[in-house]
């Protein structure tokens, strides 16, 4: 009987380890089981993407609908090219959707906010968002304020 209890408890420990690992994967790191969640790629060109990094959130009306996959320089325009992966279920972003780089809170991380336009046609995989608003750079803002003060 003692031996059976011993073996049962060791088996329980192993099962608890596997279950805890699964719970960590799903609940803590937000991994998805199975490949049912399709995504599509959209890019946007920004004048300035300061502070934006891969894995940053992409939101629509404050709801997260995707994430930034890469941030790089577009070689033709020399602007910042931001690639995003959008949840496949969100297929109602119109062609004239605009993207802006926003900050969560005063010191929070940068994320992308999308707002939908009025076009009938929708964004599909590989499209580029043209209407963009760059990240707020504090130094430039202060510089402008100082310039205006000097003008007065």
């Amino acid at each position, binding site marked *: 009987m003692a031996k059976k209890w011993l*073996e049962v408890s060791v088996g329980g420990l192993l099962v608890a380890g596997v279950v*805890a690992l699964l719970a*960590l994967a799903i609940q803590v790191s937000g991994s998805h089981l199975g490949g049912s969640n399709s995504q599509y790629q959209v890019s946007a060109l920004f004048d300035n993407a300061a502070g934006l990094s891969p894995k940053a959130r992409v939101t629509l009306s404050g709801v997260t609908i995707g994430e930034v996959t890469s941030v790089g320089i577009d070689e033709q325009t020399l602007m910042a090219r931001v690639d995003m992966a959008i949840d496949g279920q969100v297929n109602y972003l119109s062609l004239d959707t605009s993207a802006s780089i926003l900050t969560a*809170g005063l*010191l929070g991380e940068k994320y992308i906010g999308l707002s939908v336009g009025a076009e009938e046609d929708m964004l599909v995989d590989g499209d580029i968002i043209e209407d963009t608003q760059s990240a707020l750079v504090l130094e430039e803002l202060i510089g402008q304020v100082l310039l205006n003060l000097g003008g007065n």
Partner: protein
Amino acid sequence: MLVNCLQSLGQWLLRGLGGLGGALIMLLQSVTVVPGPRGWQRLVQQLYVVGVQSLIIIIVSAAFIGMVLGLQGYTLLVDYGSEQAVGQMVALTLVRELAPVVAALLFAGRAGSALTAELGLMKATEQLASLEMFGVDPLHRIVAPRFIAGVIALPILVVIFNLVGIFGGHLVAVDWLGVHSGAYWGNMQAAVSFADDIVNGLIKALVFAVLVTWTALYQGYMCEPTSQGISTATTRTVVYSSLLILGFDFILTALMFGGL
């Protein structure tokens, strides 16, 4: 005078190298054997001793550490109005650093010292010598199942530590201090990556498991067969494994997260 100094330095170095070589040979000899059916039973027995019996101390410490992290993180972050980030702070601190290190330190104190004392007493009462007389290799019979059990048990304990700690943080930050539950989990899921953070934490746990179990078994196997010797060996196990854990933690962190 100078010669004496050099001699003692050389003696110390050679003894240290000899010990390291002996430990390496012991490890290689004990793990390069495939356990037979009775070997699996002994492994299960040892998993019970080092794994299941360490569970309570791991769960209790994890809960308290998670709660303290939640509390400290909240009081720090609330000044900047970003107390929503407390979930991400608790999870990253635990998964990357605290869970492997604290669990390994507790494991060294709880299981490592017990292994050393057990082996030391076996040696002092000449049980190891009698096994050899019967033609049974004590490295296979005694050392191997304990080593493998330790290496399996600690990563499992670390995973459980992570989960319990994160729920401990949830208890304080969400249920007590009123951080929004969705923000707690949402920020955590956005910040924690399975491949980078959780897997690296588990690699740390595996390295620490090898270090702790190996140190404990070597100290017990090589201890002086007297009561004084067993006591010294047990102390050494805890001291050496703790120093090894902390030293290797820095190296592993530099390799994994330091961008080297």
